[in-house]
């Protein structure tokens, strides 16, 4: 386990090095003044500029400049946004929870829907129901998420009027932002309409989460199906059959557990994929998360925000990767020896 940890740390170190190097070089590659791109201090007075230049060691060589930049990042200073003049790090801290909340919800949805359906398909292998599930999964996987989002709004919000079309909660509810996680904030907040607000927030999250969940769910279906098929072929399942166990006993006591282990291995990897989908969906559903913010920054040519946002987001996804790797390694000792990229 120690070697596994060291290996992951090593990987973490190099990836972070490359990421910071990339974001540092972006400040040169973007049009405009490099110091302004780095700090977001647009139209700053000369004295402010001079002090910033000193902080970022502008008169030293580029390696020193890079380390000056690193020390700023690690003290939580990503500069200020060019358009709103707000501190980027705080802005990201404010927005990231909304994205995490949405992603987790979608992830949960994808798991509880995808895996059972995959098992059902495997149990009915080569029967019409299996083919139908596979076909639907293929379609679900192929639909682009932005189009699906618009379609969902058109159907469920405008035509049927069941669910709201965007936002995190109706603006009528005043929820004091404590952590940024809406459901948590509602529960710990002191308002007279906790229950109403909770329902409202729930109604708001269903549609975007369902849209995000579709693609990962179809992957889970296929993973679960394959895993279950492999398990059903094994000799210990055959042995249980020979022992005369009922169908339910075979499936729920033996097959499901063993195939779940195989599925879990891949589930974590899907989370990063899902966060990417969430970022696009946020734009369509007006979700106040980091994806919408980043895409707006791109539109506004706010180079400082783009750099900071990319850095934080990619590190976030990377950290999620490592955590899921860890969980898997804890569950399955066989994986601990595997080198990265060898699977």
């Amino acid at each position, binding site marked *: 386990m120690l070697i596994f940890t060291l290996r992951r740390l090593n990987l973490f170190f190099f990836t972070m090095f490359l990421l910071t190097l990339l974001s540092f070089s972006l400040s040169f590659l973007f049009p405009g003044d490099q110091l302004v791109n780095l700090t977001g201090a647009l139209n700053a007075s000369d004295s402010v500029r001079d002090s910033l230049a000193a902080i970022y060691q502008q008169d030293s060589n580029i390696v020193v400049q890079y380390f000056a930049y690193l020390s700023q990042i690690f003290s939580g200073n990503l500069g200020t946004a060019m358009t709103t003049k707000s501190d980027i790090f705080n802005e990201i801290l404010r927005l990231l929870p909304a994205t995490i909340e949405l992603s987790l919800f979608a992830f949960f949805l994808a798991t509880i829907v995808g895996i059972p359906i995959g098992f059902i398909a495997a149990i009915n292998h080569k029967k019409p129901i299996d083919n139908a599930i596979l076909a639907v999964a293929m379609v679900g996987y192929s639909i682009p998420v932005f189009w699906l989002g618009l379609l969902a709004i058109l159907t469920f919000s405008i035509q049927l009027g069941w669910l709201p079309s965007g936002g995190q909660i109706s603006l*009528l509810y*005043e929820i004091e932002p404590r952590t940024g996680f809406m459901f948590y904030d509602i529960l710990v907040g002191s308002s007279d*309409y906790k229950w109403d607000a909770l329902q409202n927030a729930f*109604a708001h999250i269903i549609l975007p989460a369902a849209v995000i969940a579709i693609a990962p769910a179809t992957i889970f279906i296929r993973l679960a199906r394959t895993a279950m098929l492999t398990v059903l072929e094994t000799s210990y399942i055959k042995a249980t059959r020979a022992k005369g166990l009922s169908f339910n006993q075979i499936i729920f006591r033996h097959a499901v557990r063993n195939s779940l282990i195989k599925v879990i291995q891949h589930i974590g990897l899907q989370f990063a994929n899902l966060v990417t989908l969430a970022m696009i969906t946020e734009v369509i559903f007006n979700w106040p998360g980091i994806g919408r913010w980043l895409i707006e920054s791109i539109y506004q040519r706010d180079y400082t925000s783009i750099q900071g946002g990319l850095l934080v987001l990619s590190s976030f996804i990377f950290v999620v990767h490592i955590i899921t790797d860890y969980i898997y390694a804890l569950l399955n000792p066989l994986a601990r020896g595997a080198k990265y990229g060898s699977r």
Partner: protein
Amino acid sequence: MKTSPWLTKALSILSAPLVSLTLIGCNSDDQTIANDSLIYCSEGSPVSFNPQTVTSGTTIDAVANQVYNRLITFNKQDNSIVPALAKSWHLTRDGKMITFYLRKDVSFHQTDYFTPTRAFNADDVLFSFQRILDEEHPYHPVSGGRYPFFQNVGFTNLVDEVEKINDYTVRFKLNQANSSFLANLATDYAVILSAEYAEQLAHQNQKSDIDTLPVGTGPFKLKSYQAGSVLRYYKHPNYWRNEVAIKQLVFDITASDTGRLTKLLTNECDVIAYPIAAQKIQENPELALEQVTAFNIGYLGFNTQKPPFDNPIIRRAISHAINKEAIISAIYRDQAQVATSILPEGSWAHDDTLVALEYSPSKAKELLKEAGVEDGLSFDIWAMPVQRAYNPNALTMAKLIQADLSQIGVKVDIVSYEWATFLRRLNAGEHQSVLLGWSADHPDPDNFFTPLLSCKSLETGSNRAFWCDQEFDSLIQLALQTTNINQRRALYRQAQNIIQQEIPLLPIAHSKRFQARHKAVKGQLLSSFGGIDFSEVTKL
């Protein structure tokens, strides 16, 4: 397939809250909160909470009539000037001295950041205007020291002195009579701030808060604001004019026009600004589409200090090559008039003898030849990224113009930025031409000429053509110094002729302002001038 009992149990435990939540979430429209709150989907974020310091229509809509009052105001029906914070006023015969008698029963907002100890009086009026007039005033430089509307109308040169006679009487002394002075005081910009609040902030060394955490006398007080997403007002319980029916007024800032339409259709917004798909809204029995004839102008402004548009012949050539009729039908859906002058036809000073430059690509080509640039001319058109009554879709308009001009061999690049960036770069004069417009703040014709094309407005930034013509300037100056309406009309006609000759900007359309709402929302919101007003709105 038989399912095992634990699975059924688990499923029912999982699904029970989901199902119940969704079901309840659908049918209860939150009766209690929704009934005394109103959500307005606006098109952009306000840049300040003090109308004195801005010209942006979005800011005026969000702030002017909600947070503040003025000494006098316009009657919404006939545009006459009626009392507001001043219950009456008196004008001396020479027109140089105006005395206002103030109301005694007006209270300022009590908010999280300020608790007033006294009611509104003459000190507040003095403070509000001294801040603009007196460059030595401690609050003058706060927020950049720019008061664009007042600088445009030459307020500082016009007003000699503002004097407090007693606690409830204030006198303005003017250097010369000015026919639009009262109209200027009645606009959305001439708001009354709290002197007591300013004093408190000065003690705390937080002067700049006066323009971001506002205190006024208006029907609503600020609760919270997050740029780009939401602006929340609570009602002012002691509003002097009427009991405000709405407890909470929320501005849901939704920049995309389809987003606003969706929210209207799904009942997430009660009222939306600048609706699209008029047909769809009219078909829906629960929705109402309203329009007011607004005093405005949508134009293509040429940057006259930069090539190629420093050459008036090229400006004229381009003007001949643009098909305004097509623009009116495609962009305004025929809800606008082709503009011949920068003044709308409803204005008494409009020159009815003016004829719009005809659409004639061949003439345009000749003119380009005359200017020596028959081939290879290319320039940028900046299209504003927000919707306005005077230009509901600048980007598409730019594309139409691009197509028109490609017929005469002129290449056009379309440029657009996010609104704040757009304005910043525009102020710096980075554009070659720009699609923009102007909404009048009051019915006086001067409100079109001075802010858009005078040399003075070159400095304050609303003259996007960067055009300064001495003859034109002296004409509009003369027109202000007389109250004789025939004389003024003659002067303004000459001014319009100069514009027709020089074409610093090409007037395109005068449009109506639209708004859509749920029929449950009652009360007048829009008027021909200035911003939206929620003070008298009720919701059933």
